């Protein structure tokens, strides 16, 4: 049981670690549902600002508490709403998720944006998803200064972690490793000639990946030509199996994923192909089980052969390297959290009003007290009268903004007004 939150910053969420996939599927939000749910949350006064991040691995609601939950357990109220919205039992939804408020909520979002909470540690996609979630909420008019600053900071943190640590630098998926290796032989893959052997599921995955990477020259060779032609319907060319040897001599990168029991590229064939290529390197990606390319091809000087096991081993090593980058990433995260917290804490009513009063008192001293000290012709009684008048004027000037901030019932709007006052009166600038 989480205690009622004292901070207006809230997070309730469900991710792949704690929530079974069946429940996650039901807690997911489409873009339309995001807008609708945010509208209802604000209408009911549960949140004054809100952002919903919904991906295949997580559904999370970030928000600034609204007037309807002041003094209540705002996290529980938010969880109940989500359960109701999806028509799910409240207790099940409550137990399967996590709830944070204040700095813990901020830290969680920063971890998410940095890829530390992702299934594939350090993956890049989540940063775009965080950005998109904020864009969607802003478009629905559900964000103001606090979440704007929070998500901006989270995206900055995600970028910093990626550029200053190795958390995302090395690929950890088999296709990612394969592409990285190929790019260490030929930097620009788009003009290269790709030869795909086989037209099954794996070949299809690589065909799509290569097209997405801008490959312009793909040839698919398959024992059944019709299947190769079907795979090539979005680009490239199909060739009959009999052309394998001649096609090999033209290719820069070979992706082999056939179900053949025997190697389809024996050593002699590879040697001939390399000879035809006049020493140009030939990259073999053997994804077949059993292997499609004779393993001794790896010993040829200008041939680079990688099988599934090699790619898996590299991916695992990269995963371990990413693990080592968690500590440096966390250090960045704490720095950014501190920067955000310092801004957010300054928005609290008491520090804002104190700063406002100090600012006005400073002006009074500079504009009245100091000139008054130089007016030697005035009597002591007159001086006192002028000082009282000046103090009274400052109090009158402060009354309206003070009441506007202090008496605002909506906590989100209160923070907004504090932020506006800080900005308008330059409270964060040095005197």
């Amino acid at each position, binding site marked *: 049981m989480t205690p009622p939150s004292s901070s207006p910053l809230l997070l309730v969420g469900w991710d792949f670690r704690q929530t079974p996939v069946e429940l996650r599927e039901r807690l997911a939000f489409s873009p339309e549902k995001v807008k609708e749910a945010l509208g209802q949350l604000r209408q009911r006064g549960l949140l004054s600002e809100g952002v919903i991040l919904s991906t295949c691995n997580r559904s999370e609601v970030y928000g600034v508490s609204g007037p309807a939950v002041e003094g209540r357990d705002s996290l529980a109220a938010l969880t109940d709403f989500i359960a109701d919205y999806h028509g799910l039992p409240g207790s099940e939804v409550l137990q399967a998720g996590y709830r944070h408020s204040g700095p813990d909520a901020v830290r969680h979002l920063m971890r998410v944006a940095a890829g530390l909470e992702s299934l594939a540690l350090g993956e890049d996609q989540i940063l775009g998803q965080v950005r998109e979630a904020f864009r969607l909420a802003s478009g629905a008019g559900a964000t103001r200064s606090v979440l704007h600053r929070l998500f901006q900071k989270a995206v900055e943190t995600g970028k910093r972690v990626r550029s200053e640590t190795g958390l995302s630098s090395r690929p950890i998926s088999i296709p990612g490793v394969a592409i990285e290796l190929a790019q260490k032989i030929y930097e620009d893959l788009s003009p290269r000639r790709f030869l795909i052997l086989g037209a099954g599921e794996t070949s299809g995955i690589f065909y799509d990946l290569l097209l997405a990477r801008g490959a312009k020259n793909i040839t698919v060779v398959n024992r059944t030509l019709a299947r190769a032609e079907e795979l090539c319907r979005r680009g490239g060319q199909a060739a009959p199996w009999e052309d394998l040897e001649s096609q090999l001599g033209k290719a820069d990168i070979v992706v082999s994923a056939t179900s053949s029991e025997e190697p389809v590229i024996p050593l002699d064939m590879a040697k001939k192909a390399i000879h035809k290529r006049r020493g140009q390197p030939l990259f073999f990606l053997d994804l077949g089980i059993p292997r499609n390319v004779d393993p001794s091809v790896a010993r040829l000087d200008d041939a680079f052969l990688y099988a599934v096991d090699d790619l898996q081993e*590299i991916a695992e*090593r990269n995963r371990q390297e990413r693990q080592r980058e968690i500590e440096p990433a966390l250090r960045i995260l704490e720095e950014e959290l501190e920067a955000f917290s310092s801004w957010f804490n300054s928005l609290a009513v008491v520090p804002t009003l104190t700063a406002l009063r100090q600012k006005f008192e400073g002006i009074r001293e500079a504009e009245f007290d100091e000139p008054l000290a130089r007016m030697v012709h005035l009597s002591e009684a007159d001086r006192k009268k002028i000082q009282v008048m000046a103090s009274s004027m400052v109090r009158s000037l402060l009354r309206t903004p003070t009441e506007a901030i202090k008496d605002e019932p909506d906590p989100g709007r209160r923070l907004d007004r504090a932020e506006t006052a800080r900005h308008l009166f330059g409270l964060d600038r040095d005197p």
Partner: protein
Amino acid sequence: MGILDGNEAMNLAALLCYIAAEAFAVAHIRRDRDALGTATTVLLLLGFIIHFGALVLGAKATQTVPYNTLPGSMSLFAWMLVGAYGVLLLIHREVSTGPFLIPLAILFLAVSLLMGTGRPLMSDPRLSGPLFAWHVTIAIFGYATLTLTFVLAQLYLIQMRQLHRRTMGLLFARLPALDVVWGLHRSAALLGVVALSVATVLGLIWARQNWRTFWDAKVAFTLVMIGIYIFTLLAPRLGLGGKRTAWVSIGGYGLLIFSYTVVNLFITAEHVFR
């Protein structure tokens, strides 16, 4: 004396710029940030300009060309190395080989500074004039570019070995692709071949005017060297793979060192300048 002090100070400033450029280049390898690559290039350019000023100032002070003293020729060689690297940067826009190439310039400039002013090597009045000066200067530029090919050929072999052995650490991640390293190697080899060919032709014209013969062992070795580097440029057409070509290139550089040391000291009859 005052001018010499200024020259020393400029050489030192250039050296510091090169060292700082190397530090940024290494940092760029470790943390792949564009700003670090830009800082490397800016510092290298600054060092190059200051170094040029130092060479001019030194030449004015000693009333002779930089290559007339051993420290001067080493400093000129270091400057040419940076210049040749700059040409490669302009052509390929590839900064990641910097950490391996800049130390050579640092080494030669630092040694030249430690050696002081040095004794003049050439007193023969025939060893002056623009033809001779161009011959030596262009030859030094040729040697500098071929020194870069030597390092690049090794980088190619290192990257190839890493790919074969699946050792994929930081160096693997940051070194450019094989085809990029080979492109850099080709450009450096081409520059070297052109520079050495031009220097040889100029030298032969000068020799015809000043020697009994224009043929000696040094010329023969240089022509063989040029032949080797032309072979590396034509290797793809001849069907020779990258690995073998890289070894041929390294062998060519071995011959260059042999020509610069053993041939100069013991074999040549004419290329002995006193």
